[in-house]
């Protein structure tokens, strides 16, 4: 599944999970790439990462490494998209 997942589709999947974690009902296309993970709109902290990673693995049909977030700082939507993209490329 991931082999055929293009960049835009991957971003949509990540945004859907981030929106669900923030209990927001909005179109993922309307979520900006530079939207802060923990700001006026999204409310995502590392406390929610376990559930989100499991969800991403399920939706993408992949296994993400446990250290995916090690050594990275996550402040925006795009930070998460890039981290996941680096693992599914």
């Amino acid at each position, binding site marked *: 599944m991931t082999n055929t997942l293009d960049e835009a589709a991957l971003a949509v999947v990540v945004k859907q*999970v981030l929106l*669900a*974690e*923030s*209990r*927001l*009902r*909005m179109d993922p296309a309307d979520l900006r790439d530079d939207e802060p993970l*923990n700001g006026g*709109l999204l*409310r995502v*902290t*590392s*406390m*929610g*990462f*376990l*559930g*989100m*990673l*499991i*969800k991403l*693995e*399920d939706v993408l049909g992949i*296994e*993400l490494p*446990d250290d995916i*977030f090690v050594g990275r*700082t*996550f*402040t925006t939507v795009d930070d998460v998209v890039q981290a996941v993209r680096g693992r599914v490329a």
Partner: protein
Amino acid sequence: MDEILELSRSCVTAAPPPGAAEYLNFCTSLREHLHAAWESIVDANAEDLRAIREKGAPETLVDRIRMSDEQLAWLGRLTADVADALGRLAPDPVHEAGPLRVRRATRPLGVVLMIYEARPAVSVEGALLPVVMGNAVLLKGGTEIAATNRALAPVIRAALRDSGLPEHMVHLLDNCGRSELRTLLTRGDAIDVLLPRGGPSLIDFCRTASRIPVIASGGGVNHLYAHHSADPGEVAAIALDSKLSEPTACNTLETILCDERALPSVADAIVKTAGEPCTLKVPEQFGVTGNDLVTVLPLADVDLGREFLDRTLALRPVSGVEEAVALIREHGSGHTEAVVAADPSVVQTFCREVDAATLVVNGSLRLHDGPTMGLGPEIAISTGRLQVRGPVGLTALTTTSWVVEAGGTLRASLDEELR
């Protein structure tokens, strides 16, 4: 992992039945061991704090995983409250059915897997409440509190041993990554109940990916409906207490649904009476202005159905109780919903039409917790519909066996009697 699961099951079998003195001993022993080892627990916690800071976590998150004397005092009170609740447990009910004496015997649920992404004090809660009802517990905490949990594990084990309970009744799962967690969630043969405490993704995953029954401590997208018959000052007091006493709690208030005609006076009362900094999101057309403590921002469509997880309150106009109920049905999470009204018929309609774990009438949403409601200590607030809804207290962590004392009665003789 297989070994841990087998060990946990054998502990459920070996443990004394609920109500045994060993569980009271455990409350005392755990408190004493926590006090004795507190310095080393705080040192280990400092490692976690350092690591999470290095990852750039905000201070609110750092505070959330901090173990301080405040937590120790709270855990001390919890062990005392649990001991008190154990002493108040009602004896197994007995009734007679013809020649039969039927007793409902309390049994532990079995092996409980608790998954949490929260404060390390939850590790102690998870080790205490299920265990005193005879359950074995697997605790899967977040990596953010790994060092603290490693320090807590021997403390809990020692307390179990000293109180005469099997020392492996509690396992703090170290090195349990997501793949191991996935495997655990398929082990319905070895795990009896899941108790997830975390974000929506985690709870949703447990509900959909596992066939093991879930007692879910879901988030609270909670509302307060303010009818125009209510005093605006009372609405403001209830709303502010419901939010500011603990802005990130699951029973905190997110949105006030206010009768349109009363909205200006309610907004005014909130701005005037707020004693702490907060944000009020309200439609711009009402022209509400803030002050030094209250920041007023425009309400956006996406704000409905949100958990703000900070000191933000939304204030939305509604045409009446019917629209408020409709919005709660659409956006609420079935956790805590409240109404403030002087008109009893409005209260009646609200309580009949709104379905949530707890409905509060003319009071703070923060009243929704086990101890406050006189239900004893709780490990979570459940938004599920089976086994338990609302505060998950000690008895919710048990099931029953029916003991039929028949005195030689045969079914055939009963059937004969009925003929």
